[in-house]
């Protein structure tokens, strides 16, 4: 009968309404104003792609994106490699059991410990009067004389690593767990050395997960804001910093450009998440 079925469907959808209303008001609608604002001329309100074009023509903004991409790649690679080695050491490296759970808890803390406090911690460590700088000077190594500074690109990268490796550790741990012991035994049984095991079996199996995790790390660094702001006071012009400046009305007077920048970031992040999802599917299929 048509009538009861109809009322059952609408009743079910009603239960979901609060969520969609909430999400619409505070997530989807604000996000859509981003997209709309990107394609709208801020003065006349007419549909235009001029904002995007201006974005792509502005060397300052392109430079900001490029810098963000650079730091994201560097910290994704560095954080990914070190995080992987650390995770493998704790999980399969023959270390005492408690090290694994300590590492996991600490990684949970450290991956969330970003922003102002993290910036300050590194200032205390590596600023010109920082603890480590002083120790190294006493040992004969003068960091700042060598050209290092905490407040530029490489210093910021070192700081970013603080939340990048723990993130890598947390994400890659399940994949390492998924490396069944029998695969190592089977390969040994068939005559392979440890190196050959890594080359033919373990590494190929882990590769999708490692790549996927690094992509996630890339996204994490790309969207980071508070840490860079607090550490460099806005001196290192990352894309996020430029957007933040726009919010304060500092740099640009063209809101359309601000929208376009934000839109650009969302595009990048969407590509990142899509890549991650595809690689995750691949990895799951094999590790079934």
């Amino acid at each position: 009968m048509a009538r009861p079925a109809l009322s059952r469907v609408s009743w079910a959808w009603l239960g979901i309404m609060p969520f969609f209303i909430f999400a619409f008001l505070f997530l989807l609608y604000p996000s859509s104003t981003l997209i709309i604002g990107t394609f709208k001329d801020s003065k006349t309100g007419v549909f235009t792609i001029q904002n995007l074009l201006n974005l792509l023509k502005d060397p300052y903004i392109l430079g900001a994106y490029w810098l963000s991409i650079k730091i994201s790649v560097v910290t994704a690679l560095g954080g990914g490699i070190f995080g992987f080695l650390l995770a493998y050491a704790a999980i399969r490296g023959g270390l005492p059991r408690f090290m694994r759970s300590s590492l996991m808890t600490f990684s949970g803390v450290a991956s969330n410990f970003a922003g102002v406090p993290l910036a300050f911690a590194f200032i205390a460590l590596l600023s010109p009067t920082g603890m480590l700088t002083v120790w190294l000077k006493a040992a004969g190594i003068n960091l700042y004389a060598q050209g290092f500074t905490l407040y530029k690109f490489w210093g910021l990268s070192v700081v970013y690593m603080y939340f990048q490796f723990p993130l890598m550790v947390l994400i890659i741990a399940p994949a390492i767990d998924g490396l069944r012991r029998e695969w190592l035994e089977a390969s040994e049984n068939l005559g392979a050395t440890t190196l050959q095991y890594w080359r033919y079996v373990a590494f190929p199996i882990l590769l999708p997960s490692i790549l996927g995790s690094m992509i996630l790390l890339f996204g994490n660094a790309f969207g980071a804001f508070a840490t860079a702001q607090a550490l460099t006071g806005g001196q290192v012009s990352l894309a996020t910093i430029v957007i933040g400046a726009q919010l304060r009305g500092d740099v640009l007077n063209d809101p359309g450009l601000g929208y376009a920048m934000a839109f650009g970031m969302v595009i990048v992040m969407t590509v990142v998440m899509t890549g991650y999802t595809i690689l995750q599917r691949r990895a799951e299929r094999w590790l079934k």
Partner: protein
Amino acid sequence: MKRGGLLWSWLWMILGILYFFLPLLATFMFSLKALKGVYSFKAYQNVFADPKFVTSFSSSVFWAILTIILGIIVFVPTAYWVRLKVPQLRSAVELITLIPFVVPAIVYVFGLVRTYSHPPLLIVNSPGLLVAGYTILSMPYMYRAIDTGLRAIDVQTLTEAAQSLGAGWGTILFRVILPNIRVSILSGAFLSFAIVLGEYTLAQYLAKPAFGPYIGLLIQNKAYEPAAATIISFALTWAAMGILDLIGRGRQPQLVGGH
């Protein structure tokens, strides 16, 4: 485990430990130097005595509690409903809950401010917007935690059993479902708490008192107090995670970094 392999493992572990602890050590040492020439906890005393600390910290705690409550009110019925009645909407809902993951905080704040700072939607100055924003930011974690909890109990059967005994929807949700996912909700709550307390961007740009911007302010004006505040912030996060660990042994949702 072969000898060479073990050495390698210890190497990375030690490097990791050094990297993690040195900044904290530096901060801690620095925080003790408030009084010239003497190690003392003066900086901490200053922080705790600072009225701005009290307001910002208690404000953050207050926002966090509101966020958690709002999260429970909105997400529990939703997750329940999706699992029970509208599984076809599952992917759509999950996609929405993952958007805050994808959109960088600063971009989100940008959109939020732009949207709600013009009439007729001029609510950019209301604390309600802040709490809603926090709820959205913690949505990926809170929703995932609740969903994980629901997955572990057989929602369908429990509901049918309750209905056959005469229970209405309210009773089912509050007396049957909620108590059984208490652990998961607690996990989500602790994560949300950690997020709100550590959050900087949203509070700063919505110009509301909160712990994150407070520390930012300290950095600009004081020398030793920020160090103390950093250590306090770290200790709080550690405590929250530690409790989380105790509660949700093995069933935690993934912890992804903030910025």
